[in-house]
C-alpha cells in the first residue's frame, strides 16, 4: 500500500497497524473490548495471587489449579443433581475447607521456613489438587453450567464506524461480576476490622502478632478470599471455553500482570491485568500476522518488560530512591 521499498518492514510495523486502526474503527473497538474482557480475567487471577502474597508472603503457584478445582467442584456437584445455586454455595464451601486445610497442613507447620520452601509447598499443593480433581471428577473437559446459573448468553451488537461491534452478554456479565467482586473486596479490606487486621499482617507479621492478631485466622480468610476469586474466575473462564485442567495454565498469564502491577498491589493487579489483556489482543490482531502468529505466548511478558524499562517501580509502586 503506502509502504515504499527500502522502508517496507519499518513501515509495516510503525505505520500500517495504526492506519488500520483508524481506517476500520469497528474492528479496533471490537479488539479493545475483547482485550478488556480477557484483561478482566487476568486481573482476577492476579488478584488471587496478590491477596495470598500480601498476607502470607507466599507465591501461590496453586492459584491456577484452584480456579480449575473450584469450577470442577461446581460442575461436578451439579452433575450429581445438586441445584445450580446450591452447588455454587457448596463450591464456595469447598474453597473454605481448602483454605482451612492449607493453613493447617501447609502454612502453620512451615511458618518459619524460608519463602522458597513455602513456594515449593504450593507446587506440592498444585499436584495434590490435580490428582484429587482427576480422581473425583475425572480428566475430561466439562461444560460450565452457564444457563443454570442464569448467566445470559448471546450477543448485543451495534453499528459503529461503518461496521458492527458485537459484545457477548457473557463477557458483559464477566465484567460486571468482576467489578462487583473487586469493589466488595476493596470495601471489606478498607472498612472492616478484619480488613484492617489483614493489612496489618501484610505490613508487619511481628507487629501484628504483638497486638494479638491471629496470623492463622488471617491466612484462612485470605486463602478463602483467593478461593472465591478463583471460583468466579473459573465460572467466567469456563463459560467462555470449557472446564478442564488445561485452564490451569491461565495462571501463567498472571505472571506478567504481577511483574507489571507488583506482587503486593491490588490496584496494580487490576490495572495491570487490563493493560496486559488489551495490549495482548491489540498486538495479536495488528502485529501478529507480521510475526507469523504464536505471538500471544510471549507478548504479555514483552509488554510487562517494556513497561518496566520506563517505570522500574511498577505501576503503583513508590518511586525507588537509591540510597547513596
Amino acid at each position, binding site marked *: 500500500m503506502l509502504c515504499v521499498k527500502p522502508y517496507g518492514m519499518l513501515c509495516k510495523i510503525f505505520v500500517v497497524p495504526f492506519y488500520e486502526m483508524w481506517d476500520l474503527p469497528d474492528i479496533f473497538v471490537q479488539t479493545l473490548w475483547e482485550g478488556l474482557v480477557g484483561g478482566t480475567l487476568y486481573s482476577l487471577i492476579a488478584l488471587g495471587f496478590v491477596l495470598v502474597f500480601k498476607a502470607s508472603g507466599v507465591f501461590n503457584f496453586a492459584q491456577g489449579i484452584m480456579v480449575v478445582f473450584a469450577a470442577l467442584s461446581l460442575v461436578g456437584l451439579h452433575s450429581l443433581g445438586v441445584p445450580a445455586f446450591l452447588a455454587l454455595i457448596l463450591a464456595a464451601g469447598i474453597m473454605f475447607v481448602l483454605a482451612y486445610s492449607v493453613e493447617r497442613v501447609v502454612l502453620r507447620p512451615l511458618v518459619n521456613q524460608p519463602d522458597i520452601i513455602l513456594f515449593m509447598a504450593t507446587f506440592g499443593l498444585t499436584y495434590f489438587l490435580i490428582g484429587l480433581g482427576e480422581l473425583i471428577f475425572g480428566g475430561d473437559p466439562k461444560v460450565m453450567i452457564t444457563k443454570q446459573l442464569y448467566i445470559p448468553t448471546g450477543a448485543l451488537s451495534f453499528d459503529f464506524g461503518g461496521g458492527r461491534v458485537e459484545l457477548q452478554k457473557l463477557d458483559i456479565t464477566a465484567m460486571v461480576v468482576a467489578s462487583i467482586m473487586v469493589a466488595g473486596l476493596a470495601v*471489606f479490606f478498607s*472498612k*472492616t*476490622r*478484619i480488613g*484492617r*487486621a489483614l*493489612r*496489618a499482617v*501484610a*505490613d*508487619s507479621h*511481628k*507487629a*501484628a*502478632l*504483638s*497486638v*494479638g*492478631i*491471629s496470623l492463622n485466622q488471617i491466612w484462612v480468610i485470605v486463602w478463602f478470599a483467593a478461593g472465591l476469586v478463583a471460583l468466579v474466575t473459573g465460572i467466567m473462564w469456563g463459560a467462555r471455553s470449557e472446564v478442564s485442567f488445561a485452564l490451569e495454565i491461565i495462571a501463567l498469564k498472571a505472571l506478567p500482570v504481577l511483574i507489571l502491577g507488583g506482587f503486593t498491589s491490588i490496584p496494580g493487579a487490576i490495572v495491570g491485568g487490563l493493560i496486559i489483556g488489551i495490549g495482548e489482543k491489540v498486538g495479536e490482531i495488528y502485529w501478529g500476522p507480521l510475526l507469523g502468529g504464536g505471538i500471544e505466548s510471549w507478548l504479555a511478558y514483552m509488554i510487562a518488560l517494556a513497561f518496566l524499562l520506563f517505570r522500574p517501580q511498577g505501576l503503583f509502586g513508590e518511586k525507588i530512591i537509591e540510597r547513596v
Partner: protein
Amino acid sequence: MRAPDDTTIKAGQTLLSVENVSLSFGGVKAIRGVSFDIKKGEIRAIIGPNGAGKTSMLNVINGFYHPQEGQITFKGVKRKKMRPNDAANGGIARTFQNVALFRSMTTLDNIMAGRTLKMHSNFFWQLWRYGPAEREEIEHRHKVEEIIDFLEIEHIRRVPVGRLPYGLQKRVELGRALAMEPELLLLDEPMAGMNLEEKEDMCRYIIDVNNHFGTTIALIEHDMGVVMDLANRVIVLDYGQKIADGTPDEVKANKAVIDAYLGVAH
C-alpha cells in the same frame, strides 16, 4: 474471649517473673540462665552493651522466642513458653527496637489495630458495618482519640505512618501499644535515634503512663541518664548473663557493671 483475671495483682506484688531462662540460636547463646522479676507498677530498666541479649529477653517475655530452658510466670500463671497470643491476651504490649509499624496504614488505623483484642463483633456484622460493628467501631475510636490527644499527634492522624519522621513513628508505636491498655508494657529502646526534645517528650509520656494508668513498664535503654531518671530498678545484662540487679544507684556503683561498660576484658 479473654479469661477473667481471678488473680488480680496489687501494686508492689510480682507481676512477672523469669526463672533461669536460657536461649540459644544454633551456637550463639543469647541468654544464659537469667532470672529476675518485675513488680506491678514499677519501671524496670534492662541495660547492657550491644548484643547482651536485651531484645532477646523481651522477645522471650512476649512469646516471639521460646527459651530452651527456664520458665516464665505472668500473673501467677507459670509457662514453659509464652505464645504471642497468650502474651497479648494477658495484657503484654510492646514496641520494637527498629519500629515495627503498619507502614501503609494511617496513624489512626495503626492505633486502632491496637484495639484488636478488645473488639468482638462478629464477621457477619462487620460485613455490613452495621449494628454492633458500627457501635463498637465508634466506641473504640473514642478511646483511640484519647491516646492521640495524650501523645499530641492529632496533626498526623490521617498520615500513612511510613511517611512520618522516625521520632513520630516511635510515638505512634507507643500509641498502638497503649491502645491495648496493657498491664505490662515492654519498650525496646524507645528513645534511640531521637533528638533531645523528642527524648524529653518520650520520657514524659513514659512517666505519665506509669503514674496515671499504673502501667508496669520494662524498658531497654542505652542513655544512662534516662535510665537513672526513670527506672525504679535496673537489670544489667552482659554476654547473655545477668551481672547486676538493683536500684539505679546500686547498679551505677557496681564493679562488674563499670567493667562491662568500659569494655574491660573478662
